[in-house]
């Protein structure tokens, strides 16, 4: 295995070290050191206001964490967001990809339309949607539209029942175009002969989708699912800009909680223990998805 991997690789040892040294140095300084830092400080009482008084406290931070209702609420919010946005956004992206997987004239216009929310940043989108989501039907575009159907007005971002769902809808709308592009590449990788053969065998479109498209996209689906999952667990920008974690802490996610504890309240050691748990959850989730999709 090792010999095979080295087959054909040459050059002297020194130039390899020289070429990789800058990258390794930077990775060590700004990735490895902070990772170790997160773990290290999670065992300390470390108030930002009192850097002279850093005390080792064993597992005290973690004990506090497991009894902290705000931590569990933040975890619940992050998991809720992830469980809803991942299937919704992935299915939406796949649907859009199927819609524009065509050679008809002008199809690139539709691709660009679906991709357009990606052409601006999440900060821009979040600010724009705060205004679109306005609860007043005379200033909020969405409520003005719903009024035509005699719905609402809905106080999207200030009602604890709808705040997170509103962020979920906006995030999927913004992100689906990106995953659509990945799905399109996957669809292009499925040989046309397979569809022709199935069509000759009398398979209808639904059967073709089920027996050719889905199996052909297996790896793409796995990949898209994974990146969407990790991205969803990192949710911060949208609630920070749109709701400041409210109403009633319903949109305060794990990363928001880390920010609040570490940077707003200055409980640095405690925030590091939350960050360590956050990292553990993300790794566990992605390993779990990898394992589950492998057995299928």
């Amino acid at each position, binding site marked *: 295995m090792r010999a095979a991997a*080295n087959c054909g*690789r*040459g*050059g002297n040892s020194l*130039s*390899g070290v*020289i*070429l*990789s040294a*800058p*990258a*390794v140095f*930077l990775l060590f300084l*700004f*990735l490895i050191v*902070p*990772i170790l*830092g*997160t773990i290290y400080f999670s065992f300390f009482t470390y108030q930002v206001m009192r850097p002279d008084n850093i005390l080792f406290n064993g597992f005290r931070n973690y004990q506090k964490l497991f009894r902290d209702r705000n931590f569990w609420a933040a975890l619940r919010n992050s998991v809720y967001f992830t469980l809803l946005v991942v299937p919704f956004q992935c299915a939406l992206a796949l649907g859009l990809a199927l*819609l*524009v997987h065509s050679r*008809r004239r*002008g199809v690139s216009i*539709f691709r660009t*339309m679906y*991709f*357009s*929310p990606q*052409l*601006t*940043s*999440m*900060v*821009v989108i979040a*600010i*724009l949607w*705060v205004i*679109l989501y306005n609860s007043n039907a*005379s*200033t*909020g*575009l969405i409520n*003005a539209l719903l*009024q035509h159907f005699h719905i609402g007005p809905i106080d999207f971002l200030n009602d604890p029942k709808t705040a997170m769902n509103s962020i979920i809808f906006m995030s999927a709308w913004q992100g689906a175009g*990106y995953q659509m*592009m990945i799905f399109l*590449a*996957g669809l292009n990788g499925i040989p046309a002969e397979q569809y022709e053969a199935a069509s000759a065998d009398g398979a209808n479109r639904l059967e073709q989708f089920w027996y050719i498209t889905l199996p052909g996209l297996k790896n793409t689906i796995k990949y898209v699912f*994974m990146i969407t999952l*990790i991205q969803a667990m990192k949710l911060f920008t949208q609630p920070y*800009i749109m709701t400041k974690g409210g109403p009633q802490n319903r949109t305060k996610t794990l*990363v928001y909680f880390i920010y609040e504890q*570490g*940077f707003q309240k200055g409980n*640095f050691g405690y925030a*590091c223990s939350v960050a360590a748990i*956050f*990292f553990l959850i*993300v790794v566990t989730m*992605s390993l779990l998805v990898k394992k589950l999709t492998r057995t299928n």
Partner: protein
Amino acid sequence: MKSKKNHKRLRDLGFYLGNSLIGLVFVSPLLWMVAASFKPELAIFSNINSIRTFIPEHFSLANYIEVFRRLNIPQILGNTFSYIAIVLLGDLLFGSMCGYALAKLDFRGRGPILTLVIALMSMPVEAILLPLYIEVSRFGLGNTLPGLALPFMMNCFSIYMFYSYFLDIPDELIEAARIDGCGEIRCYFRIVLPLAKTVLATVFILDFVARWNDFMWPFLITTGEDKRTVQLAIQTFFGTQPIHYGSIMAALTLASVPMLLIYIFMQKYYVEGIASTGIKG
């Protein structure tokens, strides 16, 4: 025969009609943003429940003038592009060097480095922001451009992109250069790097987009107004009195222009870049 032709026509119609309707859901918020940015403040919400809200009837540039008056646009753009330039320099130069060494050279530590790069590829940066913040501040780089950019100069994903690209380059090509007496490092710059144009373009765009959009790190590390990036500037502008929705929309529209240009001029590399991450992953 005729019914088959009709059937095709019907399906074409469905294609164009369906895509247009769904496409509208995706573009209409953005169209409204652009339209509002050209309206006088009082006209923005005046006909919100009619389709005419998407047309700036009394076209005005006052909102843009206000944005340029209230924000130091050259400074904000300068900060953002310097930040992105430093990150790109590290990622394109050092990342490709490292990717090449890992793919084509044998040296001590190659195995562990490769394992580390792959293991840390999907590491969520949010988990290390606190110690990173302390570290950068201890170096005396808090609220500075180097402090903003240095931590993102290198990322494992780019190294992996270069690594997997160089793996596919035939060894004979490099061997030939070696026999010609080309030193390993000169050989990298003269032979290998010119071959890597597509992957360089891909990493360039993926990095540019990621850094352009980044909010959390600039938000944490820059405390002063003079070091703000575009995303930070519009976020603070949104919360600063006087709140004029027209000028907010103008700021949002302006902040979308660079990405739009990237998409127009480098669409091929951008879209292929996104797609290639899926194939590699």
